[in-house]
């Protein structure tokens, strides 16, 4: 009998010890006295080899990477653990699409200007750093990569419709949004069964991000219903939908993939990373049919790219900031670009020969590196993003545009969108 009681006690003690052992995760020292730095990333940042290099140069540091396959679960985890107050890595990757949400919680992250090493001011493209700078001048993240926008198009379909199809000739079509949609009218008149672009939201979001003021003004006031430029973009895009320019295929859906295979649309707004998506979805049977040119209506734009941030939860914030600063230096980002193709956000890296000489065989051996470097430099400024900006784009405006593609009246859909934005901003 006694033995049983003792064993019960031992069990309880052991499990209690085990839970506390789990509870103190994120301990900052390893057994041999090294400082352990954790870094949480998603998709591919291309850092694996760089970690080894850094550890060799800093024998007192051990780096542990927590890698998540996709961006969405990574950020859900990030915001949940931010709420829980513990469990975050010393360095957390944050993607551009979640930036507005992240910036609204900037108080829970370190100002890298304050704790980080001295970093030259012009290391990054100006708009890249602007987007993570708070109103009072704090820098909340170091830029890693970007997704500068160019225009992808189907050469063969352009030829069939009697449009110019060489990379220089098409530039005039992609000069402004007006010329873009006018070319679309010409195209659909001569190419029945094929649309001009894949889906309304893909075009609208690029147009929207070029506006000087977006859904919010700089005092965080929602201006959806008063900013005339938003309504103008809406009217332009929905009019194009009404004329049949949209293939009505929601981005990244199965039907969208099928649309690529069957060649159901002739142009695609193309950030640098989209080339890989086009290649895998359109497949080898369409090789050489897609082309990309260094032109984008009304200048340039950006879609995607990330930052490294250091949460206040980190016990080794200073050392974490040092590592993050090192990783985001031009030399390292060029290596990451070579490893995984992440397009660097550093001005010096954009002039690196490795980048300028990179070509893409699927797109007819185009000098893709140089092309997107040109596009990156065309971007003028980062649009100010308010607290619910990402949510308004993802869960309000994109679905509203989709509903127009499904046959809803554009004016009614606009009302729904404005109401939805007001609800999301509450």
């Amino acid at each position, binding site marked *: 009998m006694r033995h049983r009681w003792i064993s019960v006690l031992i069990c309880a003690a052991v499990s209690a010890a085990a839970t506390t052992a789990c509870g103190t995760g994120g301990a900052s020292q390893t057994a041999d006295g090294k400082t352990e730095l954790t870094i949480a990333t998603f998709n591919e940042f291309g850092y694996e080899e760089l970690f080894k290099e850094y550890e060799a140069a800093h024998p007192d540091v051990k780096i542990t990477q927590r890698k998540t396959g996709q961006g969405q679960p990574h950020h859900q985890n990030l*915001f949940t653990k931010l709420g829980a107050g513990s469990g975050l890595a010393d360095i957390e990757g944050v993607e551009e699409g979640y930036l507005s949400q992240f910036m609204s919680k900037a108080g829970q992250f370190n100002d890298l200007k304050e704790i980080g090493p001295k970093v030259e001011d012009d290391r990054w493209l100006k708009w890249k750093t602007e987007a993570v700078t708070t109103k009072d001048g704090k820098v909340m993240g170091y830029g890693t990569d970007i997704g500068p926008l160019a225009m992808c198009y189907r050469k063969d379909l352009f030829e069939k419709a009697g449009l110019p199809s060489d990379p220089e000739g098409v530039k005039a079509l992609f000069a402004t949004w007006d010329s873009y949609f006018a070319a679309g009218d010409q195209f659909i008149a001569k190419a029945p069964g094929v649309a001009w672009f894949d889906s309304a939201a893909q075009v609208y979001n690029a147009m929207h991000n070029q506006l000087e003021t977006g859904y919010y003004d700089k005092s965080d006031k929602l201006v959806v219903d008063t900013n005339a430029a938003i309504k103008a973009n809406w009217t332009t895009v929905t009019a194009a939908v009404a004329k049949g320019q949209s293939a009505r295929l929601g981005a990244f859906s*199965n*039907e969208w993939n099928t649309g690529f295979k069957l060649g159901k649309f002739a142009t695609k707004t193309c950030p640098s990373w989209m080339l890989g998506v086009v290649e895998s979805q359109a497949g080898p049977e369409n090789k050489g049919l897609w082309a990309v040119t260094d032109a984008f209506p009304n200048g340039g734009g950006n879609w995607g790219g990330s930052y490294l941030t250091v949460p206040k939860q980190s016990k080794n914030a200073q050392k974490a900031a040092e590592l993050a600063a090192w990783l985001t230096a031009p030399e390292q980002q060029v290596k990451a670009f070579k490893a995984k193709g992440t397009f660097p956000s550093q001005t010096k890296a954009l002039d690196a020969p490795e980048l300028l000489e990179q070509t893409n065989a699927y797109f007819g051996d185009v000098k893709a590196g140089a092309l997107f470097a040109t596009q990156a430099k065309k971007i003028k400024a980062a649009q100010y993003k308010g607290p619910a900006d990402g949510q308004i784009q993802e869960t309000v405006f994109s679905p509203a545009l989709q509903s127009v593609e499904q046959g809803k009246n554009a004016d009614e859909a606009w009302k729904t969108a404005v109401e939805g934005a007001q609800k999301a901003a509450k």
Partner: protein
Amino acid sequence: MTATLSKVDRGREQASLPRPPRRYRMSNLDAKVSPYLFVAPFFVLFIAIGLFPLLYTAYVSLFDWEIGDDDPLFIGFENYSTLFQDDQFWNALFNTFSIFLLSSAPQIVVAIVIAALLNANLRARTGWRMGVLLPYVASLVALTIIFGNLFGPQYGLVNDVLGLIGISPIDWQASTFGSHVAIASMVNWRWTGYNALIILAAMQAIPKDVYEAALVDGASALRRFFSITLPLLKPTLIFVVVTSTIGGLQIFTEPKLFEPSGGSGGGAEHQYQTVVLYLYQSAFQGFDLGYASAIAWVLFMVVIAVAGLNFFLTRRAVK
């Protein structure tokens, strides 16, 4: 020494003795406490991961609690009053019931018919019986993705087949009723066989002599089914109806994965957003935990009410 005392003596002796011997005390305690210890794991786990979250959700629902808030604001029942005026919530509730009716009702009728067929003398009986369970074994996510493809509005197989028989294609994403049919078909595909097996088991428990007596009295097969089989299936039917009510009203995976671009809106205009999907969207896209908790509690009440109602209806209908 004490071991030599007789039973009668013992009580008297105990009063004078300050404490009974150690061994006896321990075994007495063992007999009293051990049973509770043995059942404790269930109750401890239930309290920790069942009851506590339930009550804590009720607590959270009284606050304006955004994820990451350090000190959320207490707002009493305001989340609930907002919820009852929220069109999107009523729309989600309507969708949930519509999908539930389109799935559960035909499903149970078909399951009874399949069970009756399987109960007949068939060649390779076990093979047939395992066969109806196969959809249940398949991964829910894989199944939903395949159905999502079949019901693709532009390049889906279902529309191709409809085209062959002269029906114009249906936009399964845009039409409310169409999307509900598509989602209900996923539910039916997965659960009909499972329910058929449960009903089959109950059918086999019905004593043979009842049927024999009816046969002697000249009752037809149909009459035997309605007058013997169905009434004796009642307890099992109640179980099946109640579990499919609980499952059906909490439907989430199917509508979540039916959205082609992976959002949680349940269609461009929430055509097929269910209550749990709305809950998920509020909590993990809007990060409004208080509001999501309120949705969870209202859904909890609705499930209890509907399951109770179904319990009484089934008990009354099958007599």
